Structure formats: C-alpha cells, structure tokens
C-alpha cells in the first residue's frame, strides 16, 4: 500500500552544514509518529522539508506517491497537509471563531463552514472562547486554537511542531488527549522533545541524530536503548 507520506534519501545542506542526511521516512494512513532528537538533530529542518518551507538538496518527498519536493508555499494546505508551527501562528486580530472558519471555508460552503467551525471548537474545547480575539488568549489556548484551525480543514495528514511547548502539566495532558482523539481520523507527525509527552501519545518513535534517522521503535524500547540515552539524554551507557 502506498504510504501517506514518504521521504527517499532526503538530504539538505546549508553551506557546510549537512542538516538532513539520507532520511528515509514513511508514514501510513492514520498513523501517529513522533520524531524526536536532541537540539540540532535536524528535527526542525525535517519538519520544514515536509511543509515545503525548505527545499531538499537531493532526494524526494512523496505524498500518496506524488513528488511534492518543489511545492509552492500554499500547496501543502491544498494537498491535505495540515501544519501547526512551533510558535502558534494565528490571525491575532481575528476572533477564535474566524480563525477556525477561514480554515473550514476554503473547501466548504458558508453553511458547512459554520457547522464545521462549531464542531471543531467543541472538539478542541474552545467553544466558550469563540468570540475572543486570538491574540488575547493564553499560550496554551493558542496552541489548541491552532490545532482546531488545522483539523477544521480535515486534512489526511497533520504535522505538529512541538505542540506541547510552553504548556503546564495539565495543559500537556489535555493536549495529549486531544492529539489521540485527532489521530482516530487523521495521520499525524509530531516533532517533540518532551519525553513525558511522547510517552502519553506515541506508538512509534523516529529518532533523529545529526540529521540522520538512527532508530525507529516503540517509546519504551527507545527510552531503554543505551545509545539513545547517551546521545539524547546525555547519559553514558552502563
């Protein structure tokens, strides 16, 4: 079966820096995958490659078998790739409702977009704040609104960059629940470094180190792997 998204020998060089090395990555429909790695491992570059913000030096990115390596900035959204950036990217001067509505309205009529917006705000728990300006919300709420914006377009693939960054423990738990709920229908790639958060959501984890994939396994096996502990957690193997 064709993977939902696949990368083949993906490489990126920034001058002398080899940020992504021969990355082969594959995600099935409705799968949830976490991508982890220490600072500078190439997580952000990998994320930007998938979202079209960075063009690969060599290699291919395939979405349902179609090469999308040279996309226009608005192409991922059209193809059905929903993207949540690390720093919440919202329309601050518009209300929560309008933020979500603009996402739903692109492919839906006005009435359907209204309905989808109501449902989505309910799903992300932001119905009571729908009239507030997005710019006035707390950081955690902004993260949830952005997840709402992404899922309102009903994309088959969702890319989340550090969705739990800067959240309190309670907010992290709620976000984990939300991601698992979203995963019932949508495939997700979650780039994250918070290991507790990853334990809450992940079934399979891909570990990046110095731009290359060094392991792909379950969270438990990843955590107990001496090599990963060494490079990711800074511990020396016993």
């Amino acid at each position, binding site marked *: 079966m064709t993977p939902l998204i696949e990368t083949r020998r993906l490489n990126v060089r920034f001058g002398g820096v080899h940020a992504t090395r021969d990355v082969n990555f594959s995600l099935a429909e409705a799968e949830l995958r976490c991508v982890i790695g220490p600072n500078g491992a190439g997580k952000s570059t990998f994320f930007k490659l998938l*979202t079209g913000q960075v063009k690969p030096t060599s290699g291919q990115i395939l979405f349902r078998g179609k090469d999308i390596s040279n996309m*226009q*900035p*608005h*192409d*991922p*959204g*059209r193809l059905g790739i929903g*993207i949540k*950036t690390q720093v919440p*990217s*919202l*329309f*601050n*001067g*518009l*209300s929560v*409702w*309008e933020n979500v*509505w*603009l*996402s739903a*309205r*692109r492919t839906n009529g*006005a009435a359907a977009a*209204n309905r989808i*917006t109501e449902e989505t705000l309910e799903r992300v728990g932001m119905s009571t704040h*729908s*009239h507030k300006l997005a710019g006035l919300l707390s950081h955690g709420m902004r993260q949830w609104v952005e997840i709402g*914006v992404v899922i309102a*377009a009903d994309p088959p693939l969702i890319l989340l960059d550090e969705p739990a960054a800067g959240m309190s423990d309670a907010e992290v738990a709620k976000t984990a629940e939300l991601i698992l709920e979203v995963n019932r229908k949508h495939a997700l790639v979650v780039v994250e470094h918070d290991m507790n958060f990853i334990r809450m959501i992940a079934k399979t984890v891909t570990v990046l180190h110095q731009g290359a994939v060094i392991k792909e396994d379950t969270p438990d096996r990843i955590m107990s792997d001496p090599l990963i502990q060494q490079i990711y957690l800074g511990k020396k193997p016993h």
Partner: protein
Amino acid sequence: MNRFAQSWVSAAFVLSVGTALTLGLPFVMDDYTLLQGTIYAIMAILGVSLAFIWGFSGILCFGQAAFFGLGAYTYAVAVINMGDSTIPFLIAIIVPALFATLLGYVIFYGRLSDVYMGVITLTVTLILFNLINSTAGPEWKIGSAALGGFNGMPSIPTLNFPGQVDEALTPAHLFYLTMICLLLIYLGLRCLISSKIGRVVIAAKENEQRILLLGYDARVYKLFSFVLGGAIAGLAGCLFANWGAFTSPTIFGLAQSAQIIIWVIVGGLGTLVGPIVGCVAIQWLTTQIGTQQIFNSNLILGAILVVFVLLVPRGIVPSLGDLLELLWKKFKSKPSHEITHSSQPLTPEKNLADSGPNLGAVEKPLSKGEQLA
C-alpha cells in the same frame, strides 16, 4: 443586537447620511459650493481606494495617484476621439485596472517585500509624471487628442447621458453621479469585506504565513485587491477629468500621492469611512488655509500630519468610535436602578451589543457576529 448586526447598522447609518447629503445638498448649495462638494466626493473615492488596499489588504501603495492619473488621461483621450462618453467612462476604469494587474503581478508574483512595493509604486508614478510632462510637442497625439505635456489637456468633453452625445451632464448631475459612485463603492466594499474573499484578504494581512498554510494562494487575493483599488482610483480620475474639464501631469505628482496617504492616516487606517472623513476634512482645511497669507499651507498640513501621527495615531474615526464606546460603557455601568427597572443584570457583552451605532466598530474587520454572513 450582535456585532454583525451592529456593524451593518453602522454601515446603514453611513449610507443614510450619504444619501441624505446626495439628495439634500443640491437644494441648499449654490453652484460653486456644489462644485466644491463634487471634488470632495471625487477625492473621497480616491481615498477609499487606498483605504481598501492599505487598510484591509495591508498593501501600502504610494502609486494610487498613478491609477488616478491614468483614469483621467484615458477618459480625456478616449472621449476626445469617440465623442460619446459612455465607452470612455468604462475604459477609464479598465485601463488603470489592467495597469494595476501588470504592476501587481510583478510585485506579488515576484514576492517583493513591502519596502520594494513602496519604492516601485512611487517610481512608476514619477515615471508617468515625467512621461506625460514631456509630451508637449504637437507630435504627441493619440488619434485627435493632443496630450499637451506640462500644459495639460484642456476642454475635455463632459460626460453625457449614455448614447446621447448632446445631453451633457450639468454640475448637479455630476454631483449626483459622483455621490452615487461613492456610496455604491462604500457599500460594495463593505459587502466584499464580509465575504470569503474579503476575510481571506484581511487574514493575509494579519498573518500571511498562516493563510498560505491553510492552502490559500495569498498572491491571488492581494492582486485582486490591488486591481480593485486601481480600478476605483481610475474611476475617481475619470470623474476628476470631468469635474474641471481639464487634466495635467501634476495629478501624477508626489504631492498628490502623499495627500492620499495623509487622508487615510488622518481619517483612520483600517476603516472605509475614515478616509472619506479625512479627505473632506483635509481638503476643506486646505481651501481655508488658501484664503490666508500668513502661513504656508503645506507647512500647516505637515504639522497636522505630525500631530495626528503622534497624538491620534489611529485616526479620527476609530478614535471617535473608541470615545463613544467608552462614554456608553460609563453610562451603562451606573447601578441598574438608575437607568432601568429591569432585574436583568447587564453583562459586559450586553453593554457592547447594545451600544448602538458606533463608527469605530463599523469598520472593525470581521467582528465575531459576522460569522453568520
């Protein structure tokens, strides 16, 4: 009343005042004053064109005068050649729109930044100024229309009733036509702002990266706004050429370009009615200053701009709206038994919703209630 309804009540208020002025002024004004009113309305149309593309689309265009001038010259050349003004009137809108399409395509599809946008639009305006300015020789003719160079084009035939060359519009007719155009443009732009296209345009101004991530091609929406702004400015140019039956290269000049920006800043960026107010106020002031000899008028206008940027940065209309809202909230926040016998508590939301027409809220883009549109 929700904010959606409220914003339309405010728009209805603006339209009612506009309609009343359109119908009433010709009866109370002499011909000279009516001509003054017509030029205010023509310039207000020009102001609204920039109000839309700058205030709602975030495109700071220094070249609105270019489209205005093109509209005026296109009308003049076409009507001198054709006689009947019906088609020249339309061409005077189409030519600036096509020019805006070409210019906008280079700017937006070339992904030029805002600074370059400003530089390019200003440069194009000055190029047009110099080009037209140097067409004084008898060889510079389009058909039977001599461009006239720095002397300008005099005796431009006035608009006639469609298809009836001998039925030229009187000054009163031109006033009606101008006011109807202004009101229709205001109404049309308000409807556009509430539509999907308008919301995407505003959202792209708020956060272009997010609008791209949602799958909207921001370039198309920006180009659309730019072309619409160019077409409206072209219409204003056509009416201007009719108003004085004369056009000259100065309408492409720096002073003209700067003036439009000043109207928008003084009236209120991000509103449609603000630049109309700003335009009329500044024009009236310019006329008044012109009657005295003590101060240079440009010096006074410059001082007004500095004062506004420093003290009223949001402009007249939004500041007035804020003031009214504040006063209304103060009034409402009195203990309920003083103003009403109702046992219902007044929530802040209710205060806001019941605050009636509020010019500041009129133009706040995409208020929550507009979701129902």
